[in-house]
C-alpha cells in the first residue's frame, strides 16, 4: 500500500481513513518483521565485538599488569588485599572459595546429569532384615533440572564477578599511578547508603523476583521439553527426561485422540477463541459502563455523590472469592435467581445457567454479565478521576457551539479518555485473558465440553487458557509438560497482542513526560 500525502489522506472519508490505516498497518508487518531480524543481527554483531573487546582488555590487563594484578587472575581479590582494600578483597576471595567448593561438592554432579536428567530410577529390592520389599530412590530428575539451571546461573555470576575483579585491578593500578588514593573500606560502606544506594534497595526485591519468578519460569519453559507429569515425577515413581518438541507437536497437531475425541489443537483453538472473546467483552463492557456510571454520578445536580461512590467502592472491599462463589450459587439451578423467576411465574422450569452443555453461550454471556457487576466499581473509580481532569472550558465552548450531550461525549470525553487510558486498557485486556478468579470461582469452567474433555482434562465451555492450565496440573495425571506448553503459548499470544497494540496506540508517551 503506497503512502498518501497528508492532503490526500484528509480528502478520504472516515471509512476510507480507517481502511487506509489498517492497510498500512498490515502492509507494514513484513517490513517490521524484517527490521526486527535486522535489529537482532545488529545486536549480535555488537555483542560479538563487545565480547572481543572484553577479551582483548583482559589479555592486555594481564600482560601489562604488575604481579599483584597477575596473581588476582587466579586468586580473586588478591590485588585488592595487597593494595590495602581489605573489605573488597575479602569479599572477592570469599566468593571464589564458595564457588569452587560448591562446584566440587555438588555443582559438577548437577551439571553432568543435566543432559540426561538422571540415569537410575527408583528400584525395589528385597530387604532381608525387614523381610519385605523396600524401594530405594536414586536420581531425582526434578532436582537435577532445578539445580542444573541454578548451577549455570552460578557459573555466569562467577564469570561476571571474576571480570569485575580483573577490572578493579586495572583501575586500582591506574589510580595509584596517577598518585591518588584508593577507596577505603569505610568509603565502600558509605557508598552502600549513598552513591550505590540503589543497589542496596534493589538487592532484596530483585533477588526475590529472580528466585521466585525468573527461575520458576525458566524451569517451566524447560519442562515443556520434557515428559514431567504425575506418573513421571522424577523421583518416587519414575524419572522424566528430555523429549524435544514432542509436547508442542501434541498440542498443535490436528489429529484426534483415541476413541474419536477432539485433537488438542482443536481444543486449544476453541479455548483460545473464547479467551479472546471473553477478554474483549470483559474489558470493554466494564470500561464503557464504568465510565457511564462515573459520568452519571459526576453530573451536575446529582445528590449524594459521595454516598453512591462509597456504596460501589465498598463492594471492592469484599473478597472476590466470597462474592463470586455466592453469586455463582445465586445462579445455580436451586438458587435465588431461579427461585425468584419461578415465583414470579416468568419461567416454568429452572434455568441451568452454568450446567447446560447444549447452551454454552448461556453460561458464557452470564459470566460476562456477572463480570460487569464485579468490574464496574473499579472502573468507576478510575474513570472518575480522569473525567474530572478534562478541562471544563472544552465543554463550555462546545455548548456555545450548540453541541448535544452525545456529541460532547463523542468528540471530547471519549477521545480524551481513550488517549489517557490506552495503556491501562491494554493491561486490562491481558489481565482479563488471565483472569483466573472470575471464571474459576463462578463456573470452574462448566458446562463441560464433552468433545474436548476426554482428550485433554475436563475442559469446559467457559474455561480460559489459564483455568485449563490449572486444571491440567491439579488432576491425577497432572500433565505438567502440557501446562507448560499452554503457559508458553499464553505468553506468546499476550506478547503479540501487546506488541501490536503498543505500535498502534497513539498515546505511547515518554515516561519522562510525567515528571
Amino acid at each position, binding site marked *: 500500500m503506497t503512502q498518501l500525502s497528508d492532503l490526500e489522506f484528509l480528502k478520504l472519508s472516515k471509512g476510507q481513513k480507517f481502511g487506509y490505516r489498517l492497510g498500512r498497518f498490515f502492509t507494514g508487518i513484513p517490513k517490521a518483521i524484517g527490521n526486527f531480524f535486522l535489529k537482532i543481527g545488529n545486536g549480535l554483531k555488537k555483542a560479538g565485538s563487545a565480547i572481543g573487546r572484553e577479551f582483548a582488555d583482559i589479555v592486555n590487563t594481564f600482560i601489562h599488569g604488575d604481579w599483584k594484578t597477575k596473581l588476582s587472575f587466579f586468586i580473586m581479590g588478591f590485588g585488592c588485599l595487597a593494595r590495602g582494600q581489605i573489605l573488597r578483597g575479602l569479599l572477592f576471595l570469599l566468593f571464589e572459595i564458595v564457588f569452587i567448593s560448591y562446584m566440587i561438592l555438588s555443582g559438577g554432579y548437577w551439571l553432568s546429569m543435566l543432559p540426561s536428567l538422571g540415569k537410575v530410577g527408583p528400584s525395589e529390592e528385597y530387604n532381608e532384615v525387614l523381610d519385605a520389599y523396600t524401594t530405594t530412590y536414586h536420581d531425582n530428575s526434578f532436582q537435577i533440572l532445578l539445580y542444573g539451571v541454578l548451577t549455570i546461573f552460578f557459573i555466569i555470576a562467577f564469570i561476571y564477578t571474576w571480570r569485575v575483579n580483573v577490572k578493579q585491578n586495572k583501575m586500582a593500578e591506574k589510580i595509584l599511578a596517577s598518585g591518588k588514593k584508593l577507596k577505603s573500606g569505610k568509603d565502600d560502606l558509605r557508598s552502600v547508603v549513598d552513591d550505590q*544506594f540503589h543497589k542496596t534497595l534493589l538487592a532484596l526485591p530483585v533477588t526475590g523476583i529472580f528466585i521466585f519468578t525468573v527461575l520458576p519460569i525458566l524451569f517451566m519453559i524447560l519442562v515443556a521439553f520434557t515428559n514431567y507429569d504425575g506418573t513421571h515425577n522424577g523421583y518416587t515413581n519414575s524419572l522424566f527426561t528430555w523429549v524435544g518438541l514432542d509436547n508442542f507437536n501434541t498440542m498443535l497437531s490436528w489429529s484426534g485422540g483415541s476413541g474419536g475425541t477432539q485433537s488438542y489443537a482443536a481444543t486449544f483453538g476453541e479455548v483460545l477463541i473464547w479467551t479472546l472473546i471473553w477478554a474483549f467483552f470483559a474489558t470493554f463492557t466494564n470500561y464503557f459502563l464504568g465510565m457511564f456510571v462515573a459520568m452519571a454520578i459526576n453530573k451536575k*445536580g446529582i445528590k449524594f455523590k459521595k454516598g453512591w461512590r462509597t456504596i460501589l*467502592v465498598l463492594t471492592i*472491599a469484599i473478597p472476590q472469592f466470597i462474592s463470586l462463589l455466592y453469586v455463582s450459587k445465586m445462579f445455580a439451578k436451586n438458587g*435465588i435467581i431461579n427461585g425468584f423467576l419461578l415465583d414470579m411465574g416468568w419461567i416454568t422450569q429452572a434455568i441451568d445457567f452454568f450446567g447446560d452443555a447444549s447452551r454454552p453461550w448461556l453460561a458464557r454471556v452470564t459470566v460476562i454479565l456477572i463480570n460487569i457487576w464485579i468490574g464496574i466499581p473499579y472502573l468507576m473509580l478510575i474513570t472518575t478521576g480522569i473525567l474530572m481532569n478534562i478541562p471544563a472550558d472544552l465543554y463550555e465552548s462546545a455548548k456555545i457551539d450548540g453541541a448535544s450531550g452525545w456529541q460532547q461525549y463523542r468528540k471530547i470525553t471519549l477521545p480524551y479518555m481513550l488517549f489517557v487510558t490506552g495503556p491501562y486498557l491494554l493491561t486490562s485486556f491481558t489481565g482479563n485473558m488471565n483472569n483466573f478468579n472470575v471464571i474459576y470461582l463462578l463456573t470452574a469452567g462448566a458446562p463441560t465440553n464433552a468433545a474436548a474433555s476426554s482428550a485433554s482434562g475436563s475442559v469446559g465451555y467457559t474455561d480460559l487458557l489459564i483455568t485449563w492450565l490449572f486444571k491440567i496440573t491439579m488432576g491425577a495425571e497432572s500433565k505438567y509438560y502440557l501446562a507448560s506448553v499452554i503457559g508458553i503459548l499464553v505468553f506468546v499470544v499476550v*506478547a503479540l497482542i501487546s506488541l501490536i497494540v503498543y505500535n498502534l496506540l497513539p498515546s505511547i508517551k515518554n515516561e519522562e513526560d510525567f515528571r
Partner: protein
Amino acid sequence: MSEATAKRHMGLKTSRAISNTAIHVLLIVISIIWLIPFVCIVLQSFRVENTGPVGYVMPKVWGTDNYVKLFQTDFPRWYTNTFIAALATAVLQTIIVLCMSYTLSRFRFKMRQPLMRFMLILGMFPGMLSMIILYRVLKDLGLTQANAVPGLILVYVASSGMGYYVSKGFFDTIPMSLDEAARVDGATRAKILYKIILPLSKPIVIYTVLTAFMGPWGDYVFARYIAFGTSAGKNVAVGLYDWLNKDQISNCYTMFCAGGVLVALPVTILFLFLQKYYVEGVTGGAVKG
C-alpha cells in the same frame, strides 16, 4: 428577558430536572443490584431451618446457629492462618514495593530501563505456571500443607517487587528539587529516603499496605496449591470453597455465608476508613499505567 427565551429557559430546566430524576432512579437501581448479594449473604447466614441452598432469601427461622457451628469446625484455624499471612505480607510487601518503586523513580542507573522492560516481559507469563515448581520446592523445605503459612508468605512477598507501577507513579510526582537540596546539605541518599521522602509518602504507603493485605486475604489459587490436601494449612478462601462442593453444600451452605460475613467484615471496615487512599492510588495508577 423576552418571553420566548424565558420559555426556552424553563424548558431546559424541566428537561434537566427530568434527566436528573432519571439518573437518581438509575443510581438507586444500581446500588440495589450491587448490594443485593451482600444483603442476601447476611440474611442467609442467620437462617436456621435449612443449611443448604434454597430459592428464597428471608430466613423462616432466625438464629445464630451457623456462627456457633462455625467455631466447632476448622474455621478459626483458617481464619488465623489467613490473618497471619495477610498481616506479614502487608508489612513485608510494602517494604519491598517501596524499595523497588523508589529506586526506579529516583535513580538513573545503567540497568534501569532493561530491568523495567524485563519485568514487563516477565509479567506476561501466567504467574500460575511458577506455582507448580514452587510447590515442589516448598514441599522439600517443609513449608507446605500444615506449615503452609510461612510458605504462603514467602510466595506472596518474594515477587511483589514487580508490582511497583502505582507507587513509582506517586514518587515521580515528588519534586526532585527536594532531593537535590538535601544532597547539597550533605545528606546521604538513605537519609533522604527516611527523612524527606517517606514522611511525604503517607498516602501511597497506606495504599500499598491496604492492597498488600487484601491480596492474601482473598487469595485462592496459591493457597490451594500450597495447602494441598490438609485442613490445617488452608486459608479461608480454600476452606470455604471446599464447603461448596457437591457433598458438603447441603450441610455447609449457610455456614459458608456466616464465614463469608466474618471474612468480609474486617476488610470492609478497614476500607471504609482508608477509602480515600485507595481511591487516590487506583486513579493515579491507571493514568500513569
